[in-house]
């Protein structure tokens, strides 16, 4: 009888370990999935920028410097680096360059009335939103995963198996958080 109880306990423990392990794997995959979603959206932005520059070039002849800055930032960011922190820094530079481009475009009424430009602007606004949302979902997932990893019985299992850790996307200064909104009134 005592043997049976001990056996039952062992089976129970094994099942608990399996449950925790599987839960962690599910979360880990969610984090990875979220990260690939960010990459998809970043790629989308990198693909849109050449179109934008092509459209804008004819109108903004005096803003060569800004355009070059955008292209450079785009070229650096499009070589996606495995380090999330470095990548996010590069992307922030690109965001800043794009923002200054859109701010400057306010001075060119003809450009602002161009249908192609408006469509591109909508696409880029949406892409910026998607990147922000993908990052926030990634951050949420990482936070959930990290918390689950550190909680008491789980941390023992984590030390037994190899569970990698992820770093969050961070935005350095509050200025970077500000999205430029266009007001038509």
């Amino acid at each position, binding site marked *: 009888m005592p043997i049976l109880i001990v056996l039952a306990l062992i089976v129970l423990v094994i099942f608990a370990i399996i449950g925790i392990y599987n839960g962690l794997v599910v979360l880990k995959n969610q984090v990875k999935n979220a990260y690939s979603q960010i990459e998809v959206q970043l790629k989308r932005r990198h693909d849109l920028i050449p179109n934008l520059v092509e459209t804008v070039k004819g109108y903004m002849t005096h803003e060569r410097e800004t355009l070059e800055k955008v292209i450079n930032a785009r070229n650096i960011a499009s070589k996606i680096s495995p380090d999330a922190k470095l990548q996010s820094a590069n992307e922030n530079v690109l965001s800043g360059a794009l923002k200054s481009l859109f701010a400057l475009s306010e001075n060119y009424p003809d450009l602002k009335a161009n249908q192609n430009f408006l469509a591109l602007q909508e696409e880029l606004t949406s892409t910026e939103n998607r990147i922000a949302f993908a990052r926030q979902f990634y951050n949420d997932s990482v936070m959930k995963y990290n918390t689950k990893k550190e909680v008491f019985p789980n941390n023992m299992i984590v030390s037994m198996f190899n569970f990698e850790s992820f770093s969050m996307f961070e935005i350095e200064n509050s200025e970077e958080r500000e*999205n430029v909104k266009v007001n038509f009134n």
Partner: protein
Amino acid sequence: MWEVIRKNKIKSVIALFSMTVWYSMVYGFICMLIILSVFKDSANLAQNVNFFYASGVLVAFLIFLIQFLMLKDKPYKVGSCIIYPIGKDRYKQLYNIVEEIAIASGTGLSPQLYILNSDIPNAYACGFSAKKSCVVISKKLLEILSRDELQGVIAHEMSHIINKDTTYLLCSGALYSISAAFSASFLKGAKRGSRGAAGCLLLYCLSAFGQAICFILFMFISRKREYIADASASVYTRYPKGLADALLKLEYENDKDVFFDYDNSDSLLNASFLIPFIKLEDSIFSTHPSTQNRIKVLLNMETADYREYEKEFQRLNNQNLLPKSALENAKNIPIKNVKEVKIEPKIALACALGGAVKDKEQVQTIKNNKEILEQNIKKHREVEDMVRDLAGYIAIDCECGTKLKIPPVYKDKIVICPHCKKKHVI
């Protein structure tokens, strides 16, 4: 968020199950009576009552099951307004926003989009499962909302789908419609005054009682769900002000349209809308919390997370909304900061009138056209005022520049200006 969904699910299952059990019992009793009347001559009747009752319950339960299997998965019409699906090319922005929210929620949800050809600004979500769900937006709503506001509204509607509110609504709608049909037939039987009228009356009372209880329960859950969807929307978009602004606009627009024909909208249909079609105070019978309350909670939020929403909700309503486990992870998520850039009115005008303006001359022509248009509107208003004058309308000029036109059917002595809230005596 999964904690909220789980809690929601448990609550809906309990509500639906208790409703089903209640009606199965009542209708089981009827079925038993029917079966008994068929086998009147059977000798061992008394011993078999239990058996008959059980089979009656089973039959009633089967009816419910069939009804659930036949649930419609399509968006419904509102009154005489037409609904049509929309293409990706024409409504690129709308599709973009839907995809954004799908990313923000991490669900990859892609509901079908429909336009409701109506001048009333409103929106709703429906569908039995998340895969087959759809979001319907009225034409007017698309016209009046800005991008951020539209994002808030779409996030709210998609939260309904993600939180399984649409499934619940559809199920309870089906249950409720069967029970209403049964109640009505009992009432008819009782009115006819034939044999068994008393029995019919008793059954009607039983049925109506169950219906009332379930209705109140349903409304209560439905109201909380609106708040929860608001909370989810503000967390997804990180911008509660967007949804608040949209609700404010809707409230204003719907206040203007007092002559809308409400005939075809019943209470359960009402429950699925962004803001209620039928206006009621925040009572136990209303499907929606008052829009003002919702706006207040949204505008009071200082960070965009569930904890903050719960805090503001408690301050206003003195009750809990979200389960504790949902609040653990969420804290201090900053609200998106939106910096406004002003565009010259001239350019904004050109954009508003269809874009593609090549030179300054064209801008000038458009400006002239706009002036002509404004003059036409002015003339039109004058004629309208004359017609109103003849019909017995009273016109009051408010200090804020609004002209209040009071119809002869208006009985109150005091009227409040919708813009500056100043009271005027007629």
